[in-house]
């Protein structure tokens, strides 16, 4: 072990190929004899297909074939990966999500036919010549409206549009009693706006079938190649898993939207064998808006009760989660296990109850989006905290200090058992807020705010002290919760004869910089140069297994698996070194890439040991040649990063436009391998969280048409919408994984959203603005300020 790389801002090795245009994405791959697919999609949100006439399209030059729902009548749909049970114990409703629709389309964009042609353009032209006759039906897009009697049904077999209901926390009666005893209750209605993930690279898939070996290859822009293989083989197409290779090459961003097994992946894989030709499908931007799983979309009523001293006595929440028309891979887990379990926040709330109803609507499926459930929970808690503080006349920072869980490191003090199933590993919540206030200059800020108000400027400050659960996920815990998989990770450390190291990780990198930060860990643990390490990921034929990259799990789970394999390499290496040095392995120290006999200058380098392992002429008896180890790491617990985000905004009194003047973020993500990469992750997350607060939001019209289907209508955050972020870190190591890391990928998107909304409220309280729905567009803010 050396400390040359860990903790250093090593520049990302993968960036060279990205910034010189040499990244290799799925759509860059061109296979011989490849044909192209175009999916004809329903223009209606809800309609019965009366007939489909493909004859004119089929006759067009260059068209190979056309598939419709009839071809998939006897083939399974894409599955949901998590099972959640109704409160009464019955299994959630899981409607078939067919590869192509046979009879009834359930959201605008539902796939109706797939045209295969020699070029993408011919396929698109031919799709226009397909004549589909629809009987258009009434649609419903809002989860509460979908529950009303007589609402249009998404799935005719489910007469109330309910996917399942669910609850978590203390006994409802206990929570009701706690609330009844409260001195003050703050009650708010929330809409957590639906957002589109908008990864830079649109989804793209190539299916290939090798007749000689009866073997399939799927190239896919995915966050988890092995998971896609498992779901597609076992649940959809019924192909033996060993006959399928899934490759996730360079992937241009995911943010959750590329976790899921999509219909088009199975379509191109299936069709490749039918046609004996490789077949590519690449989404265009408009399709991405319609068919990439969306995020958030909760409607809630939440109440927080306090005693007369401002201590929280209870939290009671009713939420309706819009899951869209079908259950996407993680859809059922997001509002439940990733949301309900985070409602403790960083506070000592003694009684908590969440009542959740998950609803089908005629909209695109909703699934995990950066943060996944945790931003929704944080939004409820942190909005309630700031509004309660205002209503009770207590400073919002002070109210938090009163209610924080006291510091615990998970080693000398035990983990903190929440009221909502989880046990936090370690935390020091007051430390991040203290640091945040210091960076903000909070004492001076209040004077500045008063002065600004005198000058007619609407200055406001908003807080958010968040916690999240990362390092997804301990198999025993998620198994008990209903995941149909265990979320461990695999790693193989293959030391080559020359002492160079190839690491095969199940964590897929699509922007996170694994090729750098993982290599930093390996290089330091083995005491070799960074350039001697290569990180290989994303190919099911070379990597043993992988659960993929999401839920800020790569370093905590994937990195820990690598460490386990390195330990095995060093253990065997020590035996070889001892044999060569004619001593006992116990007499050796390993440091800076060499084994040294304690108290002597006799040593042997890592490279020599590697060579000996492969050329074992002088070699211990009963030891196998080679230096190559695989490990599977199943975490003992989730990890729980936390932090404090503070936004300072100025609201234009004339126009309602919100400008973020300052944004302070103090995050504690445990130990840090590469500070630059962590900083980059935080920045990106902040931009996405702020985007949701101020700019982004999906709007469906009353017929279920997505009216925000382009970048003209759906506002993404841009550099000039954001201030220079002021960031800092605190470090409370994770006590249960070997690197002490917690995860940083989602933190920014979780903490920032309520901080911005709280700041806007703080700036406009005195004008009678008490609540606003996101995004806080100038029009909404202006109307609220002017009561119009």
């Amino acid at each position: 072990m050396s400390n040359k790389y860990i903790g250093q801002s090593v520049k990302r090795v993968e960036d060279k190929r990205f910034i010189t245009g040499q990244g290799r994405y799925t759509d860059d791959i061109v296979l011989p004899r490849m044909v192209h697919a175009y999916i004809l999609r329903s223009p209606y949100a809800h309609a019965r297909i009366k007939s489909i006439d493909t004859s004119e399209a089929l006759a067009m030059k260059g068209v190979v074939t056309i598939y419709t729902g009839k071809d998939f009548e006897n083939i399974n749909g894409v599955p949901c990966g998590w099972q959640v049970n109704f409160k009464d114990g019955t299994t959630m409703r899981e409607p078939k999500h067919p590869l192509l629709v046979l009879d009834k389309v359930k959201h605008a964009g539902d796939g109706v036919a797939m045209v295969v042609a020699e070029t993408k353009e011919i396929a698109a032209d031919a799709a226009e010549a397909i004549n589909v006759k629809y009987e258009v039906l009434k649609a419903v897009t809002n989860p509460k409206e979908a529950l009303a009697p007589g609402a249009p049904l998404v799935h005719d077999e489910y007469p109330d549009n309910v996917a399942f209901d669910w609850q978590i926390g203390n006994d409802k009666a206990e929570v009701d009693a706690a609330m009844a005893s409260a001195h003050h209750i703050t009650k708010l209605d929330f809409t957590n706006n639906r957002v589109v993930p908008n990864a830079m690279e649109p989804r793209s898939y190539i299916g290939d079938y090798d007749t000689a070996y009866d073997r399939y290859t799927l190239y896919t822009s995915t966050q988890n190649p092995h998971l896609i293989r498992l779901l597609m083989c076992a649940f959809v197409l019924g192909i033996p898993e060993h006959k399928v290779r899934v490759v996730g090459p360079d992937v241009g961003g995911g943010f959750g939207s590329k976790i899921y097994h999509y219909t088009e992946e199975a379509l191109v894989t299936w069709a490749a064998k039918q046609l004996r030709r490789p077949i590519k499908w690449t989404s265009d931007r408009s399709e991405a808006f319609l068919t990439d799983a969306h995020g958030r979309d909760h409607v809630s009523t939440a109440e927080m009760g306090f005693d007369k001293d401002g201590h929280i006595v209870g939290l009671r929440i009713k939420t309706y989660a819009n899951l869209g028309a079908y259950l996407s891979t993680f859809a059922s887990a997001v509002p439940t296990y990733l949301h309900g379990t985070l409602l403790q926040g960083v506070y000592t709330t003694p009684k908590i109850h969440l009542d959740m109803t998950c609803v089908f609507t005629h909209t695109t499926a909703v699934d995990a989006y950066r943060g996944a459930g945790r931003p929704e929970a944080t939004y409820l808690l942190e909005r309630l905290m700031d509004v309660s503080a205002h209503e009770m006349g207590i400073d919002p920072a002070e109210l938090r200090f009163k209610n924080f869980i006291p510091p615990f490191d998970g080693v000398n003090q035990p983990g903190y058992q929440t009221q909502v199933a989880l046990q936090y590993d370690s935390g020091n919540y007051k430390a991040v807020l203290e640091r945040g206030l210091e960076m903000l200059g909070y004492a001076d800020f209040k004077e500045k705010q008063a002065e600004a108000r005198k000058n007619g400027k609407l200055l406001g400050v908003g807080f958010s002290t968040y916690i999240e659960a990362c390092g997804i996920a301990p198999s025993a815990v998620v198994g008990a919760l209903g995941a149909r998989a265990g979320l461990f990770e695999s790693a193989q450390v293959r030391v080559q004869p020359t002492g160079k190291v190839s690491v095969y990780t199940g964590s897929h990198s699509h922007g996170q910089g694994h090729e750098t930060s993982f290599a930093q860990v390996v290089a330091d643990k083995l005491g070799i140069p960074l350039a001697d390490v290569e990180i290989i990921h994303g190919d099911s034929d070379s990597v043993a297994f992988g659960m993929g990259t999401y839920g800020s799990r790569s370093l905590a789970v994937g990195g820990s698996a690598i460490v386990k394999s390195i330990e095995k390499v060093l253990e065997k290496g020590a035996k070889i070194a001892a044999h060569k040095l004619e001593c006992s392995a116990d007499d050796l120290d390993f440091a800076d890439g060499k084994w040294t006999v304690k108290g002597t200058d006799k040593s042997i380098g890592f490279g020599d040991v590697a060579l000996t392992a492969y050329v074992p002429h002088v070699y211990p008896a009963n030891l196998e040649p080679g230096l190559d180890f695989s490990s599977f790491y199943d975490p003992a617990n989730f990890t729980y990063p936390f932090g404090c985000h503070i936004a300072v905004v100025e609201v234009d009194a004339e126009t309602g436009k919100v400008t973020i003047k300052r944004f302070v973020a103090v995050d504690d993500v445990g130990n840090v391998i590469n500070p630059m990469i962590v900083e980059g992750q935080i920045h990106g997350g902040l931009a996405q969280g702020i985007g949701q607060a101020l700019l982004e939001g999906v709007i469906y019209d009353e017929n279920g048409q997505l009216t925000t289907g382009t970048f003209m209508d759906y506002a993404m955050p841009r550099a000039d919408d954001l201030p220079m972020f002021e960031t800092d870190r605190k470090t409370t190591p994770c006590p249960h994984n070997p690197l002490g890391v917690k995860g940083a990928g989602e933190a920014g998107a979780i903490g920032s959203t309520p901080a911005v909304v709280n700041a806007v409220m703080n700036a406009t309280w005195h004008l009678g603005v008490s609540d606003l729905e996101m995004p806080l567009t100038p029009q909404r803010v202006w109307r609220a300020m002017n009561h119009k």
Partner: protein
Amino acid sequence: MELTGSHVLQAPVQKIWDLILNPEFLAKVTPGISRLEQESGDLYKAIAEIKIGPVHGKFEGSAELTDKVEHESFVLKVTQNSKIGNVEADIKMLMKPTENNETELSFDGVANMSGLLARTGNRVMSGVANTLTKQFFSNFEKELQNH
């Protein structure tokens, strides 16, 4: 999308009624409509070409006159299909004589769009609807002079 408009035309109700029910005339004054062919009774085949910002396409569908009240009102039901999406509109047309023996022509209706048209055009649609309404009435006035 809501469609409303009103304009006073310098001709008696009788004349306006006759003109507006003449498919050739209606096709001429209605922006975007290139042809109206009688299919049966009050049902017409309508062919239109529309270009609105990023959205342009050729529409084919039908236009049907229903609920006719002689010299007073009728409902125009339009169904237009295109590769960029479909439009369905129900528009009530109303003719009211003014004191000077002129006619106040007004309409009130709703158009529902689907597909690409709904996704990419919606933001600009109400502005476009206003422009098309103005065009309709100014075309009407111009053509009126020839009749």
